[in-house]
């Protein structure tokens, strides 16, 4: 029983409740999910008046081989819940959980075995669907692009959700797709964007981390030269990245902070969802469209709202995988 421990630690004395997380190589300021997670943890800490690096803290990994040592060292420091951020950490979380049955762990973006592990996943496809709608509606050329980091199950969710959204909003639109096979090669991102825009695309959605920076660069260049091109950011509100040329149409935000906060809270209240899969979708505000919406037209926002309802209501089922997408496409016609 992990849940019993949960009660005992959660029961009364909240004071000595401690939460921590292990980042992947990005670090807690990667302007992406690591940072978002840390923001969630920080908020939780503040709200429960915990002391940083005593009540709540993070450890950064410099290589994959650091995950396990980091997870372990936090557990040895008796943290009540330890978060592993990013699917890359999945296996290590699983092993550590097996070795330390009394520890409570959580893994983000991944589902692993072990009833002392909470599996936090997001419906990136749902969020991507919404920004897809915006892209579909606001593309003048009826051509939009998707730049992926490394081709993977996770990034495929972004791609397919986005494509579905675009086609839903604009059946005659074409979606160009390319993976850089690299999350850190800005020049690749730039050249892919260059190619897309050259071919007439005017909105590009990137799910490519540092490679995405190149997409912004290309868009800014073209905006400067009077072209009317847009980028859709990912994970956080990437409005700032688009300035001053203001090329960020909108962003698909993934509220890792939200998730981390909630799971921490549940754990503190003895409701640690060990062995469960906690899916954060539109319903849970786990994903969605960024707050900055100055560039999003009224009617786009409107349909975003409509579909949000439909999806939450389950009337629209957004595709995750290529197969599901093909299915979805048939039904469109």
């Amino acid at each position, binding site marked *: 029983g992990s849940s019993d421990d949960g009660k005992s630690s959660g029961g009364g004395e909240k004071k000595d409740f401690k939460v921590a997380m292990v980042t992947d*190589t*990005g*670090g*807690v*300021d*990667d*302007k992406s999910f690591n940072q978002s997670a840390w923001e969630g943890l920080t908020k939780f800490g503040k709200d429960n008046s915990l002391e940083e690096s005593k009540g709540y803290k993070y450890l950064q990994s410099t290589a994959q081989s650091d995950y396990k040592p980091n997870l372990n060292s936090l557990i040895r420091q008796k943290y009540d819940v330890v978060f592993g951020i990013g699917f890359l950490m999945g296996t290590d979380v699983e092993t550590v959980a097996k070795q330390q049955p009394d520890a409570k762990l959580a893994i983000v973006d991944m589902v692993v075995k072990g009833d002392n592990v909470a599996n936090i996943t997001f419906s990136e496809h749902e969020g991507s669907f919404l920004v897809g709608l915006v892209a579909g509606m606001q593309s003048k050329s009826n051509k939009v692009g998707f730049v992926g980091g490394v081709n993977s199950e996770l990034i495929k969710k972004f791609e397919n959700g986005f494509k579905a959204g675009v086609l839903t909003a604009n059946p005659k639109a074409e979606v*160009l797709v*390319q*993976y*850089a*096979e690299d*999350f*850190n*090669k*800005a*020049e*690749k991102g*730039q*050249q*892919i964007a*260059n*190619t*897309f825009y*050259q*071919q007439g695309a005017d909105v590009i959605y990137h799910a490519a981390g*540092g490679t995405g*920076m*190149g997409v*912004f*660069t290309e868009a*800014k*260049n*073209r905006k*400067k*030269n009077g072209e009317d091109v847009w980028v859709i950011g990912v994970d956080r509100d990437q409005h*700032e*990245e688009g*300035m*001053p040329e203001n090329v960020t149409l909108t962003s698909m935000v993934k509220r890792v902070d939200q998730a981390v906060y909630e799971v921490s809270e549940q754990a503190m209240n003895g409701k640690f969802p060990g062995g469960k899969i906690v899916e954060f979708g539109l319903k849970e505000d786990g994903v969605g469209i960024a707050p900055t919406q100055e560039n999003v037209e009224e009617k786009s926002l409107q349909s975003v709202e409509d579909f949000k309802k439909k999806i939450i209501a389950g009337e629209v089922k957004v595709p995750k995988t290529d197969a599901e997408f093909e299915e979805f496409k048939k039904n469109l016609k």
Partner: protein
Amino acid sequence: MSFMDILALIIPAAIVSAAPLIFTALGGVFSERSGVVNIGLEGLMLFGAFTGAVTIYYGEQFGLDGAAPWVSFVVAMIVGALFASIHAVASISLKADQVVSGVAINFLAAGLAIFLTKKIFNAGQTPVISERISKSDIPFLSDIPIIGKLFFSNAYLTSYLAVFVALIVWYVLYKTPFGLRLRSVGEHPMAADTMGINVKKMRYVGVLLSGALAGLGGAVYVASISGNFTHSTITGQGFMALAAMIFGKWHPLGALGAALFFGLAQAISISGAQIPGLQDIPKVFLLIAPYVLTILALAGLVGRADAPKALGTPYEKGKR
């Protein structure tokens, strides 16, 4: 897409991504022509990128506006040279193994740059800069039919600067007394010594110049491509520059050509995914194409490259 469109897509892209490599490779030429191996290019470039990002950011704060990037280039060159001076002292004055010292430079640059970034911005990367070098058409030249579209349209000023600098380096190395002496020191330091040339001084100059140019390369990368500096902004470009220098047979124009070749191959592999015909090739082949092409080119046309004779050997009076 018409063939013309494809070229118009690939060639400017090639020139763009080549620029940082060109600068850095030219730096390598200076250092190694003077007889000092410089594996440290990666680190020097990385620290240049860091310096560039920081300088531009604060430049913007101080209202330098459009000048910020250009200021950052100067700063990056100075800092790069200073950083390289560590390599110089170690490998020239202290007779350290030049490869070892170069490797140390790489570790030091990586560690220090991120460490400082965290200190200054307490974030893993510098803020995104808004003042950048941006693409533009070169007036008049871009109007020349065909050539204009391919070589003078929507490319960075820094790219042309790179080509220009390559020409200057060539002139300096092959037309001026300084160049003659620098090369002599890399070929046969003792001979140079007997001719009254200060071997150590020449080598210092060579290494510092390499630092300056590599620093510039890094700053240009930030100002024109990445827009900020993170732990993963410079990952391997320095080594590619090293390869370009050797590919170019330690000759400035050779290095220029090699860097452009890399750029072109890279551009083909990336745009290839969209080019009719190439589209259907499995992606992985496009991905590895640039590197395979390079190897083929080397094996096929280029072949043996003769390093400067005294490359890698510290100079001590009266030792053979």
